[in-house]
């Protein structure tokens, strides 16, 4: 596939990194030449420098025969304009734009083909904010991922000594979690993946991925770890885009303090937030943390733009007694260095936010892609199309499917064919009822099932996608 990526910032670079390994032909456009050269040296792709919204630059990037345009520059206006130009002049089939401001998203008619011609818009800041918010709601989880429009949730937890999981074979789990259908999808021990089977015994320190229907997930969490007291007090360091969005989203649920270094920004924040307490100062300032009783804080979130600062302030907060710490860290090497030590959760904003984007790029019919363990592993939601003759998965039991080593089918979401009536502004409409089926060796996959597949390594992704593609004879 020929893909043009506009903007070589954090998001653009992460997208390029993820896609370059999947036999795509990628061109990156940015106006920072040095940045582009560095990127070109590291990855196998083409670069073009210039204004990303200019027709001549897009032409130079090969917009005529590109399959996909991903506009992820810092500027909403540039992204919108580029999509319009690509549509009008080059008729690029699919156009994705990053829109940071919520203003545009509130008017979907602006994005249709007669206006800015944006097929899909994404807001990385909002995705990261939503993601962190879920982590606050499930404080024990390292990752919380949703599939099938929120029907299925996968969580990653760290097993610890004396916990429910540790020391017993996996097949005993159903006895200990009656009435709950949950499955262990994967286990990572010292960064090595272990394929879970009924006899696998989890050791303390393992990272365990558990999947269940979303309605069950809280129960699973409760059973899994003795629930510490729930999160109440939250301190956010950094009142940037993500810090502000998060504070606004959770200020009515939790007791939130937001630390911001810049005085004028702090005043703006204080004007816009109603219940969160805005403090002016530095997240790495010991005296400030101490006076704001960090030792009684349930969650400390370091969300500034500076990853070194985030690491330092989160470590400091942990040492001073914060119950749980989270830091935004983009560099993979840093994440491996600090996660699990003083910093409980490290989040890479770029990796987190590109899942939606990746789903659009993938072959077959991929509904969701979540990058796991900072991009090392991936969870896919794939829709099975076709019939038993032309598709290698439909009509087969899971044990019969020729999945590559390291890939497991974790769950299936199936349309039951029934529907219930709901009302929207008094107009009735039918909502199909879906059921969540946990995968067992004898589960048979049917057409139009949403299949959630766990890949312990990214290399497996393309093989899984191929498996789900419909053979040529079908058309």
């Amino acid at each position, binding site marked *: 596939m020929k893909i043009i990526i506009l903007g070589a910032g954090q998001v653009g670079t992460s997208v390029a990194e993820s896609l370059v390994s999947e036999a795509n032909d990628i061109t990156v456009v940015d106006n920072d030449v040095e940045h582009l050269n560095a990127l070109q040296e590291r990855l196998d792709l083409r670069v073009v420098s210039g204004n990303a919204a200019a027709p001549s630059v897009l032409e130079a990037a090969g917009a005529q025969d590109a399959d996909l345009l991903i506009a992820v520059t810092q500027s909403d206006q540039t992204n919108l304009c580029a999509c319009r130009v690509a549509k009008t002049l080059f008729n690029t089939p699919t156009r994705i734009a990053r829109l940071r401001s919520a203003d545009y998203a509130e008017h979907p008619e602006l994005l249709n083909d007669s206006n800015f011609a944006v097929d899909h818009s994404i807001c990385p800041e909002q995705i990261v904010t939503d993601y962190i918010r879920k982590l606050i709601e499930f404080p024990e989880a390292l990752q919380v991922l949703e599939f099938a429009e929120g029907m299925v949730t996968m969580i990653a937890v760290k097993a610890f000594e004396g916990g429910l999981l540790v020391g017993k074979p996996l097949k005993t789990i159903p006895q200990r979690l009656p009435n709950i259908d949950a499955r262990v999808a994967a286990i990572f021990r010292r960064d090595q993946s272990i394929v879970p089977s009924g006899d696998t015994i989890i050791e303390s320190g393992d990272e365990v991925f558990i999947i269940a229907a979303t309605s069950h997930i809280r129960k699973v969490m409760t059973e899994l770890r003795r629930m510490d007291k729930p999160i109440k007090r939250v301190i956010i360091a950094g009142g940037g885009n993500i810090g502000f969005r998060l504070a606004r989203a959770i200020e009515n649920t939790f007791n939130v303090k937001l630390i911001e270094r810049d005085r004028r920004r702090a005043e703006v924040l204080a*004007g816009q937030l109603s219940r969160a307490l805005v403090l002016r100062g530095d997240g790495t300032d010991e005296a400030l943390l101490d006076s704001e009783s960090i030792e009684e804080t349930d969650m400390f979130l370091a969300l500034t733009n500076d990853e070194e600062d985030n690491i330092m302030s989160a470590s400091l907060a942990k040492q001073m007694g914060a119950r749980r710490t989270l830091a935004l860290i983009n560099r993979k090497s840093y994440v491996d260095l600090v996660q699990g030590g003083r910093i409980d959760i490290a989040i890479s904003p770029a990796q987190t936010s590109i899942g939606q984007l990746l789903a659009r790029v993938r072959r077959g019919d991929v509904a969701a892609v979540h990058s796991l363990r900072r991009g090392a592993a991936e969870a896919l939601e794939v829709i099975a199309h076709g019939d038993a003759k032309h598709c290698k998965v439909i009509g087969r039991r899971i044990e019969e499917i020729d999945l590559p080593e390291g890939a497991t089918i974790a769950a299936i979401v199936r349309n039951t064919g029934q529907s219930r009536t709901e009302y929207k502004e008094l107009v009735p409409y039918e909502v199909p009822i879906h059921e969540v089926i946990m995968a067992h060796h004898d589960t048979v996959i049917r057409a139009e099932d949403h299949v959630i597949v766990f890949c312990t390594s990214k290399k497996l992704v393309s093989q899984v996608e191929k498996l789900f593609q419909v053979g040529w004879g079908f058309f």
Partner: protein
Amino acid sequence: MDALLPVANVLGRLLSIFSLAYLMPIGAAIFYNDGTTAEFVAAMIISLGGGLMLFGVTRSHYRELKPRDGFLLVSTVWALMAAIATIPLLLVYDTMSFTDAFFETMSGLTTTGATVMTHLDGAPPAINLWRHELNWLGGMGIIVLAVAVLPMLGVGGMQLYKAETPGPMKDAKLTARIADTAKALWLVYVGMTIACAALLHQAGLSWLDAVCHAFAAMSLGGFSTRDASVGAFDDPMVEFILIIFMVIAAMNFATHFLAVRSRDLRTYWRDLEVRGVIGLIALSCFGVALYVWMEGTFEDYPTALRHVSFNLVSIGLSSGFVSQDYEKWPVFAPLWMMFLANITCSSGSTGGGIKMIRTLILAKQANRELTRLVHPAVVNPVKVGGSAIPNNVVIAVLGFIFLYFMSVVMLTFVLILSGLDFISALGAIVGSITNAGPGLGVVGPSSNYAVLTDFQTWVCSFTMLLGRLEVLSLAVVFTPQFWRK
């Protein structure tokens, strides 16, 4: 004198227009044939002649007024009108001193509603109508003052409301803007008054009583045609109607205007002050009623609620109608009512006191300081209706409130020095500065201000004007800087 002569020119014009106000009592005098027609016609001629003369003499000094002239204009306009309006009173009652007559008209025009007159029940209808008309005209003046003039002058943090003045204001000249704003708001005011009068008549009052009390209710003035005030009617329906219209009058008229224009009742909910006024008044009514009932003042709770509601709304919203001698209630009740009069009314209403918006800012500022003690690094601007208020506005509000309460304390001292007892002195000053009317003690609900000496009467007249003009606009005229070039 540079500032004085152009202002005098405007005053002359206003005075000529003001003389038209005599038409209403003249009509009443002819209709009821109460024998005061000649006096009112004479007063009208004097007023018109005086106004035209002042206008003519200062004509060469006519110029567009500057914002600074506003202070002088609003101060002198109230004093001069009050002085001129005494003429019919002086002509009809030859025993009445100018001091008392001036108090009465000042009380009318500042919508205070305190009176020095007795035997009101038997007074000529034209005189009663004149007193109430002064209330009503004062209310009109205050609406313009509060919605247009004070925000423009930035008195005591009121520049806050500058941006929210309704009407076509962008790019328009200041004078045109005030005129348009005023017209729109007066329309609301007149409409409400007509509705109130009609309802009161429906409830059984004579047209004269209905119109007079509607005038006094909408202006939150509180004059009555009876010595016993609204208590004379002893009618729950009348009290209920008056409560409703007093609460309406205690809201910002700009909000009414917006609500009428957008035909959306949610406009009221969005106005922070409306929520404050209604919340505080409702809570106080039920609470105080419970208290006086449990203290045994009334036999049953509904009766207590009826009487407490009417008197508390009336005094608390700085109106001044009375239906009971509330001084006989446990002392907490009247004091709480007097306290409410200081803080409850909305800005842009016809009510007095420091206004709800300043009360809210004061409370938020206090809370802000408390938070700052616990969290020294906190950044927490005072927010009203979701937007942060600049610090200079907060400081202006604090300065205003300080000056207001110092005025209360100092003027109370002056009355005590002049021989009044403490409770009466405090009651008289609070009743005057809030423009509520009835005070406590010798000037309480069961009596009136006639017992005061001439000096004390003048002090009260001055206090009413001070409160009406939000202290600062009057005080600034007495500072040397104001007159320096």
